[in-house]
């Protein structure tokens, strides 16, 4: 039975990496049928697969189309397993408010970052795209977030990131939140200039950055 369980996790993980939505769905159903712990199946199966996909993305084996297909497979399994999660206290998850700045409706980068962060155990409050600077601050306060993650894909809208930081300062809550930024035209230089706490070049690195910003040990890099 134990062996069988591990085998299913491995297959679940593989189905995500191999972009096999149907397979992930069938395996998730099997997890439910065999009364295997759903949390473990997500952790060691689906999330593990998504982490591997993220690694392939970083290594430029996979690009956006492949990563999106992997996430589809992951979510198809997740939808089956989620209702079967037992209510276990896992402590408070770190919360991230994420969105694309006002004037910008390119949200593919934000969605990839959200996906990878979610897979890595963060709780995400997604404000969507075209988000006014003030809303980032308000929602971060309302949700008692740890991190504000801001994305912009256009040189014409990236300055709104600085506005978010200015509002945080004005409202004297700058120290309550870490601010991370990313997107096509954004660079480390720009992030430093506007006083952000961090910049990441892609979705995988965003996970490392977020973990670093909330002080989580980064020790789960052993998955081959």
């Amino acid at each position, binding site marked *: 039975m134990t062996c069988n369980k591990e085998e299913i996790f491995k297959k679940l993980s593989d189905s995500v990496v191999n*972009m096999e939505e149907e397979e992930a769905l069938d395996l998730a159903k099997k997890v439910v049928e065999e009364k295997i712990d759903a949390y473990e199946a997500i952790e060691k199966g689906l999330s593990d697969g998504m982490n591997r996909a993220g690694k392939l993305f970083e290594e430029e084996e*996979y*690009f*956006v*189309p*492949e990563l*999106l*297909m992997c996430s*589809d497979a992951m979510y198809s399994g997740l939808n089956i397993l989620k209702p079967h999660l037992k209510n276990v206290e896992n402590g408070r998850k770190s919360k991230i408010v994420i969105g694309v700045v006002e*004037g*910008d*409706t*390119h949200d*593919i980068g934000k*969605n990839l970052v959200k996906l990878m962060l979610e897979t890595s155990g963060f709780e995400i409050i997604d404000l969507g795209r*075209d988000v006014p600077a003030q809303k980032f601050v308000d929602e971060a306060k309302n949700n008692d977030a740890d991190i504000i993650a801001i994305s912009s894909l*256009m*040189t*014409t*809208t*990236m*300055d709104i990131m600085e506005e978010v930081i200015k509002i945080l300062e004005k409202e004297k809550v700058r120290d309550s939140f870490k601010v991370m930024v990313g997107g*096509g*035209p*954004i*660079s480390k*230089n*720009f992030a430093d*200039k506007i006083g952000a706490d961090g910049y990441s070049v892609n979705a995988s690195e965003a996970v490392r950055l977020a973990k670093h910003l909330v002080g989580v040990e980064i020790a789960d890099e052993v998955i081959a």
Partner: protein
Amino acid sequence: MIGSEIKGLKEESKVNSKEIIKKALKREKTPRVPVTILSGGTWCFNSNGISLKKALEMKPDAAADIIIKTNQKVNSDIVWPASGYNNLAVQAIGGKLNFRERGVPDIEEPLIEKLSDIDKLDFSKLNEDAGIKNLLEITKILEDKIGNETMIAVSQWGPLTLAGQIIGIEKLMMGMVKDKQAVKEMIEFSSELCCKYLELFVDAGAEMISLSDMSASGDMISKKFFEQFAIPCLTKVTNRIKKKKPDIGTMTHICGNVTKFLDLYPTIGVDLISLDAKVDLSTARQILDGKMAFGGNMNPVDIMKDSTPEDVKKACIDCIEKSGAAEGYVMMPGCDLPPDAPLENVKAMVDVAHSYKLVC
């Protein structure tokens, strides 16, 4: 020896911006480094305190006048009258645009739900769009007033980017994996839309076209998908426009790190490829030398917007030298100019191109 140098100088003063660009596109020697802003429509109007919506509501004469006056200060070899308005082509087939005080208008929602819904769209009303009509007028005026000495160019999204605007980029991307045929049909449609749009401007007098295909970026798709999906449609559009007007100048701009695509670019058939800051120009020279012209590279934000004119100059000289300080390189920023890039910085870029002594 001295005589020939003086003669050379005299010839230099006779060669105007347009001739320099024409030579550059053919990779011929030019008396100085060719230089252009990359599109810069938003920059041009926003830096004059005018939103793109407002500019479109002005009399075409007045809008053309602002473009001309701005370029008198800048001296870009190419002027792009319809820059910033690419999405009007999407509006003309039923898209709803959001105009902003600053920046470019964006599309509110994808036009169709599924790739197979492409049949529901038609571009027969493209030339009835009031905004496009206005841009065509501006193009005509610019061609009349400065077209003898300046290259008037028009840009539009490349077919992959246009397709992404229509269906939503994520669906397009996933379609490349799971429904290649449907994506190809979708791109067939967007290529046709792209051609029809560009042809209107060629008829209005534009002498150069550019396809800006950010969704074909090396940061987004693999080389395999670039070959499968991007190359065929970019080639198709380029050939169609060249067939219509054989001496038309052609360019493609693709954002992001496209180093892995460089060896494929000459197969597209465009004269010039514009490169992002992420691509090393010496690598580009190595791969493209003798095959096609290339340009770009100055970081539009860190350099063009946030540096001092002195640092812009340094970065530009660095670009010339990395590109081999020879024919075939056109100086331009690595992507569209941010609206608040200082005029002094743009001037500094042009100054370098005008003063740098190419060793021939």
